[in-house]
């Protein structure tokens, strides 16, 4: 066993120029809310001369469509195209049965920054809900658009938007062949701007973000055996955290970022451990939580850090259990069905999302922590790896479309569904970032 010598080796990942082969995911909406909010995003006059595809108002419109809660009016159905508040004729929008209006323009400052001057207007109340500017560098066009979408979404629904967040996932090409290639990828929440964090011929799985989103942890079979690695996004610096005898899987940061929950079978069979990240090399930093000859795996922290949900087949079939740090006793949470696995704790703290088998189909389901029943959210049959948006409104998961692995998204209430089919390869193992520090400036001018 050279695990101890390898375990704490720090090294820099050589950032070679990777071929720009990414998942290139499209968005296919399958189902929207029953009564979507009618909104019109009037094309922004773009004095910064964007290509049609990257027009900020188009990105905003696509964001709102993807949320499933909005039904933007087609530009060709707009009776007028106001660029400023004094050009708005409310009658035009009432005739079109539009409830809300987004108008604006994009200018470039002499310093080269892009400035979106825009307003959100309540048509029925004939009042401005938000007006101001979102400002960012030339490369921040998409970030400006997602920020506008966040403001629109929150102003109207009262729920924080998640359009400026990122996704982490694994892209696999030539699966099932000797040429198999794994890429750990980071992309915008709409699948755009993917970058490769790690490429390997050995399996990569179970990626997740640190709470500050500066680093990711994942399982990598480098050298043919599973190990748990941490990699910083900006620098590419990487370290090995655990590579004990047996399997090393399921790393998840504690909500305060000081510890990992992980799974190791170093003591003979898979058990849940925590690892103190302030001194990961010390054996005292590794604390075993479960003691059972069954499989214990797939841990996730409750939002308040008071406990860890996990999968165990200690009752004969895999079910979800909760390990509470104060009672130190696992308590079973799922009783419906004979296969419930990979629970993710909702940020609201009171629900879990997990994979539930019924009639030999594997669906994404959700339930209250304390009581049944469960609610099945999907019709797809081979679902796995659920992850939750930081605003708790959406869940992303991996499923299959024919023989291709794809990502799909469903709202927590099951009303909104869309898929992210990739032009190439199999896409799997999604993780949704926390809310990120803003990379654009938002200046609210104050509503009237």
């Amino acid at each position, binding site marked *: 066993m050279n695990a101890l010598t390898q375990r704490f080796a720090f090294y820099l990942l050589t950032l070679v120029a990777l071929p720009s082969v990414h998942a290139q995911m499209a968005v296919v909406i399958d189902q929207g809310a029953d009564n979507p909010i009618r909104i019109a995003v009037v094309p922004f006059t773009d004095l910064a001369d964007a290509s049609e595809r990257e027009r900020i108002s188009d990105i905003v419109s696509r964001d709102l469509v993807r949320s499933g809660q909005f039904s933007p009016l087609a530009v060709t159905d707009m009776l007028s195209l106001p660029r400023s508040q004094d050009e708005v004729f409310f009658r035009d929008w009432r005739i079109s049965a539009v409830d809300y209006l987004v108008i604006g323009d994009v200018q470039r400052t002499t310093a080269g920054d892009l400035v979106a001057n825009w307003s959100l207007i309540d048509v029925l109340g004939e009042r401005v809900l938000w007006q101001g500017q979102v400002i960012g560098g030339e490369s921040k066009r998409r970030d400006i658009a997602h920020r506008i979408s966040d403001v629109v979404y929150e102003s109207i629904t009262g729920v924080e938007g998640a359009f400026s967040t990122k996704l982490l996932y694994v892209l696999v090409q030539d*699966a*099932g062949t000797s040429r*198999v290639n794994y890429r750990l990828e980071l992309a915008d929440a709409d699948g755009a701007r993917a970058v490769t964090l790690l490429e390997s011929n050995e*399996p990569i*799985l*179970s990626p997740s973000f640190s709470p500050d989103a500066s680093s990711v942890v994942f399982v990598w*079979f480098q050298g*043919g*055996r*599973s190990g748990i690695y941490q990699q910083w996004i900006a620098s590419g610096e990487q370290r090995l955290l655990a590579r004990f005898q*047996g*399997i090393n*899987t*399921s790393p998840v940061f504690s909500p305060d970022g000081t510890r990992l929950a992980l*799974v190791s*079978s170093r003591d003979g*069979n*898979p058990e849940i451990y925590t690892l103190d990240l302030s001194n990961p090399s010390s054996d005292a930093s590794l604390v075993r939580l479960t003691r059972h000859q069954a*499989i214990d*795996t*797939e841990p996730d922290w409750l939002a308040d850090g008071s406990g860890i949900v996990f*999968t165990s087949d200690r009752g004969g*079939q*895999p079910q979800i259990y909760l390990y509470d740090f104060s009672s130190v006793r696992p308590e079973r949470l799922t009783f419906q069905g004979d*296969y419930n*696995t*990979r629970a993710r704790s909702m940020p609201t703290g009171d629900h879990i999302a997990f*994979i539930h*088998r019924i009639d030999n189909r*594997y669906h994404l389901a959700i339930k209250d922590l304390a009581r049944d029943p469960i609610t099945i959210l999907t019709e797809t049959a*081979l679902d*796995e*790896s659920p992850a939750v948006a930081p605003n708790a409104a959406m869940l992303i998961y991996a499923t*299959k479309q*024919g*023989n291709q692995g794809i990502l799909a998204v469903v709202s927590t209430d099951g009303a909104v569904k869309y898929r992210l089919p990739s032009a190439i390869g199999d896409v*799997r*193992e999604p993780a949704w970032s926390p809310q990120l520090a803003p990379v654009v400036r938002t200046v609210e001018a104050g509503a009237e």
Partner: protein
Amino acid sequence: MGNPLDPSTGAPLSRVFYFDYDEAIISRDDLDVLALHAVFLQENRNVRAVLEGHCDERGTRDYNLALGERRAMAVSSFLVSSGTGASQIESVSYGEERPANPNSSEAAWAQNRRVEIVY
């Protein structure tokens, strides 16, 4: 490197052993062949073998990693109890990461729930 042969036929011994869904119980039909692998390993103490545990794609990946390990451990336990030196074998689980057949069908899944002995 090892290349164990069936003493009665002279053909190479089968090195792939299949499992039922969510099970890690060795098939009764495989016990004779596994016993011959154990004899081979006993007679060749310098030979090492890796037991690779695999699963079909259904269910979650991390649970399947654990299940693949359980299958590899089942074969490992049988070989050790049949006289193989524990230091001669290593168990590795790939879960559902390395399917023998990448399709989504009952036939493909049956080919993927397996332990491979790699000498």
